[in-house]
Each structure stands twice: as C-alpha cells, then as structure tokens.
C-alpha cells in the first residue's frame, strides 16, 4: 500500500503541463542520446518495437529464401545441378545444401530468440503494462533500460555470427551435432549460442520487472481481478521467464564449455549424453512456447472485448487459464522427445501434454462466447482477432495428433510439425502482435492509419499464411521430413503452392508497412479513445504525456464493464466515455 501512496503523492497536480513523450528534446543528437539513455517505459517499448520489427524483416527474408530454394528439388540434369538456388562456388550439391542449412537456422534463431520471445512483452508489454495499471512507469525503470541494452548486445552477437558465415545447427542446437559442426571455425557457433544466452538475461530482467510492477504499482481501487487480461497474460509470461530462462542459460553455457573445453556432458564421443541436452533444452524451450503464446492470448482478450463492446466471458476462468497454462507448461517438455525416450517417460509426458489442451481450449471457448450479443465493429484489429481465432484453433487442434504417442511417431520432425508450430507461433503470436500494434498504434504514436488498407493487408496475410502452411500439413502426413534442402519429386507441387503463399504473405506485410509509414507521415491525429475501450490506457492522451497521466487514476469500474458503463445512446464520436475512471482534483 505504501508504494501506491508514495506514487500517488508524486502524481498529484504534477504533470499538467507536460508534453507528449515523443516530443523531441533539443537537436537530433541530444534527442537520440535522450532515447538511448531513457528510462521511460514507453520509449523503451517503442525502441523494442522498432528492433523487433527490423529483425522480423531479416528473419522473414531468410524464410523467403527457404521457400525459394524449396520451389524445386535439386536434381542433376546432364551432369549439371538444377533446381538449387543457393550454390557453393565449387558447385557441389552438398555444399549448396550447407548454405540452405545456415539460412533455415538463421530464420529459426532470429524468429524465436529475437522476435517472438521478446516481441509482445518487450514492445507492447513495456509500453502498456504500467499505463494499464495506472502507474507512471515500471517498478525498476533503470533495470528496464539495462534489459534493452542487453537485448541489443545479444542481437548484435547473433548478427555478427551470421556475418561471419552463419551456423548450421538449427535453432535447437541439438548435440552432438552442435558440438561437432564447423569445428574449424569454432567461434561462430559459440557466438550464436552466446547470443541466445545473453538474450535470456534480457528476458529474465524484463520478467522480474513486470512481476514486481504488477504486484506493487496497481492504481488505487484496482484489485487483482480488476486488471485487464493483457496484464494477467504478461504477468503469467513474466513468471515463466523468470523461472525457466535460467535453465537455458545454464544449458547454453554448458554447451559453450563443451565446444571450447571438451567437457563431456552432451557429446557421447567423450562420455556425454545427447538426450540430456534435449531434456535441458526443452525444459526451457517448452515453457517458452507459452512465453510466446500467452501474451498473444492477452492481446486477443483485449481486442475482442473492446471491438465487440462486450464483457469478456468467464473473466476468472481466463485469468486462471493463463496461470494454469503457465504451470502445466513446466511439465510437458518431454513431448519433444517421444522418438528418443523410453516407454514410461513417453506415456507420462503424453498424458501431461493433454492437460495443457484444457485451459487453452477454455480460452478459445470464452473468446467465441464473448462475441454473443456483442456490438461488433470490423476494425483492422478486430479482423485480425477473428483471423487469430481461425488460425489458432487449427494450430491448437493439430497439436492433438502430436501429443498422441502413436501418431506423433509418424508426424514428429515432419512438415506436419512445421505447419503446426507456424499456425501457433505465427498464426497465433505474430498475427496477434500485428493485431495489437494496430489496436494500440493510435495510442503509441498519436495518429490514425488507413483502416481500409490495413484490412486489405490483413486479408492478404491471412490468405498467404494459409496457402503457405496448410499445404505443409499435407506434406508432413505424406512423409516430407523437416529441415530438408531437397526432396523427392512427389512433393514438388505442394512445395510450390507453399512458396506462392509465402509471397502473398510478403505482399500483405508490405501493405502494412506502407500503411504504418503513411500514418506516421500523414495520419490524422488520434483521439484519446478511438475504439471506446474502458481500460486505463484509453483515458490518457494519444500519445501519452511523459508521466502517463495528468492525475493519478482511481479505478471505479472493471476494464470490460461495457454493458453497465456505456450509456444506451452513447455516440461513438463522444469521447471519452462518460463515467470515466478519473475524477478531476480528487485529492
């Protein structure tokens, strides 16, 4: 309580004349210095957003390169190699495959460690969490700045490793391949593993910061069950980050030791056990799947309620489902190893894996039920939220034959798995991230964007995504293994459809890029509350002032009390919604 009072006393009457957090400070150099050393969670959020989107572009280019290579199988026609796009100067087929292997590793490592894991918590979470709680900043603003620079250092290490020639271990770094590959150029692999290690620290520090912020900085009147579900999701995520990330840190460190000093933990040639690495790796990397997807759940909960003006169905079930998913996620790592473990372990992990399906299914049921008797507005964020429901439901349901032991032994390490985790990670996380960016864009940058073109972009992404990845389910069930640089001729047609899809996907994202640039240059100024939301971020200016609120908010209604808060004849042009959380000069 004391923290809140202390915080409150600062807020009283303090910030009436403040400008937007985006307002430049003096010249270009001093403005850049001010950004680089800022402890403002909003500026850090915006910088993360820029970095994550840049790396998403880099990882996306690698993905397109993969799709281009797989447009045709590599064949030898009259002694000449054909159908191989990436070729070594020597012309050997295997050396060309080696280039492909580096490209898919690059794609996986960037997308997982630098985009999807940090994406939503670091960019949107940083920007929104304190505002949604009615706080001025996160609990430890300086630590937040440190997290950012650790993230920058980690990403730079990864990029340096790529510039030095890249690594071909796959993003999973399975031993003993990762301890023996490229043994003539040790440092590249060590650098890439080091990058993942360093990025982990950024995750831990951000998570720690968020947990404390949620516990200590909620505005007066905001109980745990008055928090927006996005905050619940980020909170659950932060707990996983703090508990699981140290394990991958230790594992990666052991891997570096193994490579540099031949310790003999994972490499069987010197007495280690390669499956031990898989246990360590997935003990982190499975919970991290939920670090990637829980924030997405949070975004979708916000978007569906705000754009349908409807109270979320089963608020408490939603909050507990987030925590439940976070808890069970620690007990299912073994389902990545059904093809390498014994019967007992496989049976136990399969049974536990099905448990995680329940809270996830409950969430989907609740989102759909929220639409019932709502007042649904088809804005770009809402269109994306509906696309999410479609894609994530497919992603979730295709997890069932992977959790089932007998079918998994057919589908494991096939394109079915590739398609499944792209439906979850991209159809789930990336789609909701893009949806969230559209939803909070007016708040973050104070400008509206062209709704119609944003929806065109969303539709292109949706069509391109399904064409790219639905074909891959069929490839997988028919026997196409993953991480293949070439394939037997039977698979050619489906691979070609998939490649066409990836270019429609590119087109969709380019439309979004232009919509965002156009908005920054020529968008009309955004009102405080363009969608009629009830959580606290919609009660500050767009963009917010440096300390977020002119007055400390006093929470008087829940974030989803649309039915009781919005008067029957409210006109969407009336902003803010009456019965606001603020009472002028309440002190």
């Amino acid at each position: 309580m004391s923290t809140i009072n202390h915080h409150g006393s600062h807020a009283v009457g303090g910030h009436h004349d403040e400008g937007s957090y985006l307002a430049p400070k003096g010249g270009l150099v001093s403005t850049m210095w001010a950004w680089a050393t800022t402890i403002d969670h909003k500026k850090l959020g915006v910088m993360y957003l820029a970095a994550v989107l840049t790396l998403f572009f880099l990882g996306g280019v690698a993905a397109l390169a993969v799709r281009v290579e797989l447009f045709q199988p590599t064949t030898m026609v009259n002694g000449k190699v054909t159908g191989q796009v990436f070729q070594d100067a020597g012309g050997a087929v295997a050396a060309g495959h080696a280039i492909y292997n580096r490209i898919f590793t690059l794609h996986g490592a960037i997308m997982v460690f630098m985009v999807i894991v940090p994406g939503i918590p670091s960019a949107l979470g940083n920007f929104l969490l304190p505002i949604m709680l009615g706080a001025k900043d996160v609990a430890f603003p300086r630590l937040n700045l440190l997290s950012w620079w650790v993230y920058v250092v980690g990403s730079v290490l990864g990029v340096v490793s790529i510039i030095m020639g890249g690594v071909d271990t796959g993003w999973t770094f399975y031993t003993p391949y990762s301890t023996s590959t490229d043994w003539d150029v040790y440092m590249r692999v060590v650098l890439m593993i080091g990058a993942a290690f360093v990025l982990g620290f950024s995750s831990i520090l951000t998570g720690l910061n968020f947990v404390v912020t949620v516990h200590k900085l909620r505005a007066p009147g905001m109980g745990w069950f008055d928090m927006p579900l996005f905050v619940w999701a980020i909170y659950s995520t932060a707990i996983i980050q703090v508990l699981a990330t140290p394990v991958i840190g230790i594992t990666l460190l052991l891997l570096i030791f193994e490579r540099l000093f031949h310790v003999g933990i994972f490499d069987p040639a010197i007495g280690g056990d390669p499956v031990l690495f898989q246990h360590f790796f997935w003990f982190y990397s499975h919970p991290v799947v939920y670090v990637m997807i829980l924030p997405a759940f949070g975004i979708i909960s916000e978007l569906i309620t705000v754009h349908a003006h409807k109270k979320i169905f089963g608020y408490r079930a939603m909050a507990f489902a987030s925590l439940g998913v976070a808890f069970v996620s620690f007990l299912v790592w073994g389902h990545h190893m059904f093809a390498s473990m014994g019967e007992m372990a496989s049976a136990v992990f399969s049974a536990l894996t099905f448990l995680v399906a329940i809270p996830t299914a409950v969430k989907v049921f609740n989102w759909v039920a929220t639409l019932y008797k709502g007042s649904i507005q088809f804005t770009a964020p809402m269109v994306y939220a509906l696309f999410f429901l479609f894609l994530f439901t497919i992603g979730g349901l295709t997890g069932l034959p992977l959790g089932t032991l007998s079918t998994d032994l057919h589908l494991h390490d096939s394109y079915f798995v590739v398609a499944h985790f792209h439906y979850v990670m991209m159809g789930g996380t990336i789609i909701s991230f893009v949806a969230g960016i559209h939803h909070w864009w007016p708040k973050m940058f104070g400008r509206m964007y062209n709704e119609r073109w944003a929806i065109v972009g969303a539709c292109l992404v949706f069509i391109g995504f399904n064409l790219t990845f639905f074909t891959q389910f069929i490839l997988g069930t028919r026997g196409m293994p993953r991480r293949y640089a070439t394939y037997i001729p039977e698979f050619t047609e489906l691979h070609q459809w998939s490649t066409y899809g990836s270019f429609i996907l590119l087109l969709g994202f380019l439309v979004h890029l232009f919509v965002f640039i156009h908005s920054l240059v020529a968008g009309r100024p955004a009102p405080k509350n363009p969608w009629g939301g009830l959580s606290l971020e919609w009660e500050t200016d767009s963009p917010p002032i440096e300390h977020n609120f002119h007055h400390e908010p006093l929470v008087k209604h829940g974030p989803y009390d649309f039915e009781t808060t919005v008067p029957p004849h409210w006109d969407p042009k009336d902003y803010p919604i009456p019965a606001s959380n603020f009472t002028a000069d309440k002190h």
Partner: protein
Amino acid sequence: MMTSLFEHGPLSATLAEGNALRDFIFGTGGSGHHAEMVEETFAWIFWISAFFFVVLMGLTVLWSVQYKRRATPVALVSSSHNTVLETLWTVIPLGILAVMFFKGFQGYLDLSVAPAGAIEMDVRAAKWDWRIIYPNGAESTEREKLGSAKEIPIFYMPAESPVKLRMISSDVIHSFWVPDFRGKFDVMPNRYTYYGFTSGPIKGDKKLEAGPFAGTPYEDHWLFCAEYCGDSHSEMAAVVRMVPRETWAKIVDGWSSAGLTPVEKGKRLHTIQCASCHSIDGSKNVGPSWKDMFGKTETFTDGTSGVVDDAYVRESIYEPAKRIVAGFPPQMQPYKGILSEDDVTAIIEYMKTISVNHKPAEGQK
C-alpha cells in the same frame, strides 16, 4: 478388452482402404498393420477436431454477422459467466483427451515392442548413409541414384514378416523413418534403440526386371533420415524394397562376402561404405573421386603435397582429418573400429584397379 474397444469402434472405418480422404492425407503407400493403426487413430482425432473447428468457427461467423455493430455501439446485456456451461466445456474435452491418450499409447507400444519370432537386423547410421546388416552379416550391394545423383542403397525386406531393427549411429543423432510404415525412432550415437514392425503385403504390380530373380513382385518404400544431421541430411535416404520372404532369403544369401578376392571385396566395401562421398567416375562429391586417384600427387589443405599411396589411404581411412585434399571440406568420420586392416587392404587393391596413375610393381623389386 481395450483392443476391441478401440479397433472396432464406430470411427474405425472412417479411413478405410481406398478412402479418398485417407489417400489425400497420407497418400496410398501405407504398409503394414502399424500403419493402419496410426491412420485409424489419426482419423479419430481428425473427426473430433473437425467437429470442434466447425462448431467454433460456425458460431464465430454467425455471431459476427448477427451482432455486427448497428446504429448504437452498445452491446445487449447477457451473462458473462455460466458455471454449468463452463464446467461442461472443461470436463467433456478432458474425457475425450483421456481416450485419445490411451489410443496413442497403445499404438506406441505396438511399435516399440517387437513382434514374436522377429527377424533381427542391425541398422547403422552415419553422416549421410544408412546401412542394414542382415542376420548372416551381409549387406545390400544394390544402389539407386537420387535426383541429385547421390547413390543410396536398396534394402530388401521380407514381406508379411515380423522384423526387429537394432539401431545405432556412429556420429550424430539420426532418425529412422519409413513414412509408409507411419512410424519413426531416433538412432542414437551412445545407445541402441529399437524399431519393430510386421511388414505388410506387397501391393501394386511391379516385378523385378533383371537378374536371377526377374519376375518377382516387389514394392518400394522410402526410408528418410528425420533428425537434422548436416549438409546432406536431405539426401540421407534409402529404398526399402519388399519382396516375398523366400526370395528375400535367397537374395541376402547371395550378398554374403565369403570367397571374394581382395579387389572384389574392396569394390563391395566401396559400394556399401564409401560411394555416397567418393565417386568412381571422376565426378566431384563430398570427397575426392577415386578415379585415377591412387598414385596421383595431391595438394593438401595445409599446403603440403604428397603421393596417394598405401600409407596415405590407410591414414585417410583411420585419421581422415590429418591430411585433406585441397578443395574438400573436413567432413569424413574416422573408420577406426568400423573397417578392419583386411578391409583397408581390400580398398587399396580396388583403388589401384581404377587408377591410371598406379604403375603396377615395375621397378619396386
């Protein structure tokens, strides 16, 4: 009891033979009892998933249209919580998932417990080749070329017979996957793993064309490596050829290496162990071609040069990293413990026969 419950359930016939949906999902190559079991379980999950998907998406579309925002943006008042409904949609899926788990576990045991009276064979995996060692110690000498010209072995298997594979890798982790059998298992470098199956009947009307067994019916299935293992991972393949059991036994007997001359033995060892990286027609592959190599002076990656003689060949087989011919990657694994001194001698004798640079015996004595 459990068997009867699952295998003759109402959904078991949904993906029966010739079913268009089954053929679309899996293709038509499925072979053996285990494949049927997996397809049946998959079908069961598929229909349950389809049901939930259609209901959820149907409601989403219906309500999106029905409750599209009209003149006033205010939602109709309805309950945002319903204990009975929420309990039901938690408990019912839980029950379905429990059944799913048991079906999956049953199929898993079917694959990991070898059938009684199984023919035992050894699977050896190494970057980037499969070897199968038959009960008499013989290995397949038949090869086929992939589209990219890499040579892969043809493994003959007895149709309608129980088989148990004992598998080990000599370098990194590989994974044994015959998609038509609908199952796979990892091949580890530090311990044996097993894969048991009862092979299916020969389908289709293909007949062996040449050789002593011409006219024998056969059916081919792909074997892939499913665990990423480096540069040629995507070409670490083999053909599993099913033939009638009696024919299989005769073919495997013919592969026995008893009574071969050193040159014949060397040629066979090349086919089995070396052909995927070293060609004998002069074409460039992962390693240098053996054509005209013996007796030639080569430059090595460390800048030195030397003649490819008996000593160099032996050194390269046992300690390949010591001196590597310039222009080639250091990819070869040491064959110490895999090839005996007799085998090395046989390979040297064979290399001599395919090199114009080898000057036989003249002036040596």
